C-alpha cells in the first residue's frame, strides 16, 4: 500500500503526527533523520513525503530532498514541505524542486491531513 514517509526529528511533533495520521487511517512510516529517510525510501518508494528541513545528523531536509530526487528514477516524488523556518529564498528553492505543497508550521491538523490525503490520492490514481 502506498505510504506517506514522515521525516520529522522533533519528538513532540513526531508523537502528534503519529496520533493524527493514525486517527485518520493514513498509512505512514516515520524517519527521525535524513539517513533513515533515504533508507526507508530505498526499501519502499513513498507515495508522498512530509519533510522537515532542520534535521539532526549529516543531512538536512534539502539534501534529503535532492537525494530522493536523484534516486527517484522516473518515479513521482511528492514532497509536502512541513517546516518552521521558511523565508522567500526557501520557498523559491522549494518551488524549483517542484514541491507538492509547502506548509509553514504551525498549521491545523485538518489542513495537514487534507494535503496528505490529496497527495496520497493523486499517487493512487497514477499507481
Amino acid at each position: 500500500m502506498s505510504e506517506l514517509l514522515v521525516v520529522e526529528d522533533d519528538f513532540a511533533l513526531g508523537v502528534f503526527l503519529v496520533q493524527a495520521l493514525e486517527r485518520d487511517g493514513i498509512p505512514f512510516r516515520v524517519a527521525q533523520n535524513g539517513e533513515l529517510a533515504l533508507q526507508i525510501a530505498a526499501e519502499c518508494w513513498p507515495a508522498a513525503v512530509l519533510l522537515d528541513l532542520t534535521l539532526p545528523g549529516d543531512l538536512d531536509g534539502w539534501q534529503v530532498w535532492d537525494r530522493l530526487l536523484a534516486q527517484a528514477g522516473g518515479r513521482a516524488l511528492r514532497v509536502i514541505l512541513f517546516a518552521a523556518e521558511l523565508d522567500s529564498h526557501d520557498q523559491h528553492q522549494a518551488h524549483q524542486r517542484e514541491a507538492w505543497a509547502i506548509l509553514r508550521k504551525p498549521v491545523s491538523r485538518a489542513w495537514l491531513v487534507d494535503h496528505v490525503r490529496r497527495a496520497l490520492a493523486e499517487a493512487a490514481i497514477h499507481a
Partner: protein
Amino acid sequence: MTIDACQNLETILTEQTAFLRTIAHALRTPMQSLQGFAELLEPGLPPAQVEHYVAFIKRDAAYLAAVVDDLCLRHELASGKLLLFPTAIDVGNLLAELARQFEAQMPDCVVSLEYADDLPPAFADPDRLLHLLGTLLRNAARCRPDPDGPVWLTMRAQCELGDRQVMFIVEDDGQQVPPEYASALFDPLPQLPAALGRPRLGVGLGLYVAREVARQMGGDLRLAGTPVPTDRQFGNTFVMHVPTFEGPVGHV
C-alpha cells in the same frame, strides 16, 4: 563605504538572517506541537491519553516561555540594560519553588532536591536565579535517553567552605560533551558537531544567558570537568554558583 565595511555589514546581515531562522524554528516548532495536541483533545478520549497530550502542551508552553525569556535577556545583556535585584535567598525555599514550577511544566519529571539545612542564604536576583536553574533542569530533561519516559532529576545545592559561594549542581544523562567543546557550549548559538548527539537546546541561548547572568550576579556557570572513565559516554554535570549572603534571610 570601504570594502571592509561592506564585508562587515554583509557578515552582520548574514548572521542576523541565521539568527532569525533559528528563532523562527525554535518558536514555530513548539507552536505546531501546541496546536496539534490541542486539536487532538476531543471529547471521549481516555483520561490517560488526555493526560499524555496535556503534558506535551504544558511542556511546549513552558519551552516557548523560556525561549522568549532567553531572547529578552540576551537583548538586555547585549544592550547593557540588564537590571538585577539581588536579595538574600533561603536556598531551601528557592529550590522548593523551582521544583514546583518545573514539575508543573514538565509533568513527567520529578525533581529531587539535595541540600544541607544549614546552608547560608544565597545573594542573587531570585526571579533570574529561578530562570537560570530552570534552564539547567530543562536541558537535563531534554537530554534523557528516552524522550517519552519519566525522568528523575537531582538538583544539589552545597556550599564549599571558604569560597563563600552556593553551588547548584545538575547532572544529565546526555552524551558527554568532549572537553574541546566545553567552552563552545556557552556561546550564543553554539556550533556543535551533530555527532555530539545533544538535543537541539532550543534557540541555543539558554546556557549563554545563564552563564552571563550568573556572572553579573557575582557567580558563574560551568561544565564540571569530571574525569571520564573510558566506558562512560553519557552524563554531564553543570555547576552554577552565586555568592552567599551573610545577614538576615529575606523571603523568596
